[in-house]
């Protein structure tokens, strides 16, 4: 297995608040990793640091053998780490097609290529096939601001995937999505990313989603990783059950280990 991302001793403090402490993670190629933890545990801070949005106080981040600490998001994106957002970041007043066309154009053009026309038939064909893979082709001409939440989430993720990144980090892909829609949405995303052989790290509160799609779990608690283990193992870990899932209200150890579920999770607000 090839290591693509190595994070060592990462720290982030905001004044007296410790948002991340002693974060050590090694990510291998083609892994699907779930990041869990209560609100404020440091999950998004971790994603923000790896993608360059936040500058860590100290530590090392190595991507594909290269130190990426302190680089801005655009450089890290160009090296091969993309992300989606909990609140979709799209071009709100434009159509779905124009959103993706712009994503392709920015990804593909550089230097003098920026002065070639934005629209060309080949690019439009790529946009349309991307729309099909993410199953939002029926919304092609709809304005982004009018989209249902699930479609907007898909658009956001589809835009992040345009550059065919080595690693894609998804920040709560299913938040704000109704329980019935969640699995359908995740099926679409994970199938598309599997085809692209993308390494995926995603933040998730719903343990059913974690169990179904993820091979390895990183559990965050108060800025630290309290558990880094294969999914089945992590979900029965006593620390995870106490601080992340919330044992006393929810299912028993055996149910979780068997991959069954019976309802809502500790900090899932649905």
């Amino acid at each position, binding site marked *: 297995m090839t290591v693509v991302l190595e994070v060592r001793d990462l720290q982030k403090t905001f004044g007296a608040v410790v948002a991340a402490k002693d974060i050590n993670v090694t990510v291998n190629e083609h892994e699907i990793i779930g990041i869990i933890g209560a609100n404020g545990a440091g999950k998004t801070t971790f994603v923000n640091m790896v993608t360059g949005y936040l500058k860590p106080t100290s530590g090392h981040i190595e991507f594909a053998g290269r130190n990426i600490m302190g680089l801005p998001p655009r450089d890290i994106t160009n090296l091969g780490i993309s992300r989606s957002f909990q609140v979709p970041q799209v*071009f709100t007043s*434009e159509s779905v097609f*124009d959103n993706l066309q*712009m*994503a392709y154009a920015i990804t593909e053009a550089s230097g003098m290529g920026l002065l070639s026309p934005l629209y060309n038939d080949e690019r439009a064909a790529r946009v349309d096939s991307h729309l099909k893979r993410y199953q939002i082709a029926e919304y092609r001409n709809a304005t982004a601001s009018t989209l249902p939440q699930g479609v907007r989430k898909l658009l956001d993720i589809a835009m992040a995937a345009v550059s065919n990144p080595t690693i894609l980090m998804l920040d709560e892909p299913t938040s704000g999505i109704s329980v019935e829609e969640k699995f359908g949405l995740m099926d679409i995303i994970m199938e598309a990313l599997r085809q692209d052989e993308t390494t995926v790290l995603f933040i998730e509160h719903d343990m059913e989603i974690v169990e179904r799609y993820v091979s390895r779990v990183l559990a965050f608690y108060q800025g630290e990783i309290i558990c880094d283990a294969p999914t089945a193992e992590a979900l029965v870990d006593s620390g995870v059950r106490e601080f992340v899932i919330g044992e006393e209200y929810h299912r028993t150890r055996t149910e979780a280990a068997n991959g069954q579920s019976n309802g809502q999770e500790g900090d899932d607000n649905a």
Partner: protein
Amino acid sequence: MRYVDKTVVGLSIAFVVLLFADFFMAEWMRFIGLQSLARGAVALGLLVLWRTGLVSFGHALYFGIGAYAAAMLTLVGYHDAFFLVLAGTLASGLLAFLLGFLLRRYRAIFFALLNMAFSMILYGVIVKTEELGSTDGFSVLTPTFLGYAPQGEAVQTTLFLFTLVFTYIVTVGVHLYLKTTLGGMSMAVRENEIRVEYLGYSAEKVIHVKYVFSGLVAGFGGAIMALAIGQVDPDSMANWNVSGEFVFITILSGIGNVGATYIGALVFELIRTYAFEYAPQVWQFILGGSLLAIIMFLPDGIWSLIDRLRKSEG
């Protein structure tokens, strides 16, 4: 080519019509036309910024630099219109490039007013400089055109022709530019800078390019204006109310089409000229009233009238 660009066709028709009209126009019409082309060019720069989500209340800075650069060169013996206009354009472009490093970090009202602050610095410098005629300014000698030195009415005719050709080139250029990836990124930066960064491009860099560009065309407009009026002075070239007029024209035109800026500039020029002539006591009231009417009834500017017509037809 299968695809015909309607805007380019429209601009080309307008260009040819005006080219011929130049020889028949009354002098006052040509004068208004020249001023409209000059102001329209500045509004074109504002249109590009506007599409990126930025409004500048200080583009008289670049207009003024363009005008004064061209005018000052005539003081030291340069009279060729090609050289003067090129120099005015480049001087403004250079200043925009330098100030762009600071301004690209600001948005919204901060961007608007920081531009105004810089423009008022220029205004202050000019007013305090006796050598440049202080508040009175100084007159600009008649330009030559590659050795051709027109006399009498031929000066304005030639200048109009000259302006028309360059305005046409610049405007078609801008129109085509807006259809490129870099041009289209105006939308992306306006809508969501975070997404632009996470797609791998610098939003600030996009803004900087647009800003330099707006400085270049404003300088072009300023140099033309200096030659057209034959006089530069701080109050009509560099004061903040001049910047306000450019914003006025941009609102009047709307940002739907590059050609609209010239129509907007012409309408502005006509309203001002006639309001001043027939109602000298209340001409500002009329100007303000027409702005109010535009904002209330045509919030997307004059160009939206054409869109409405198209919709009702088809």
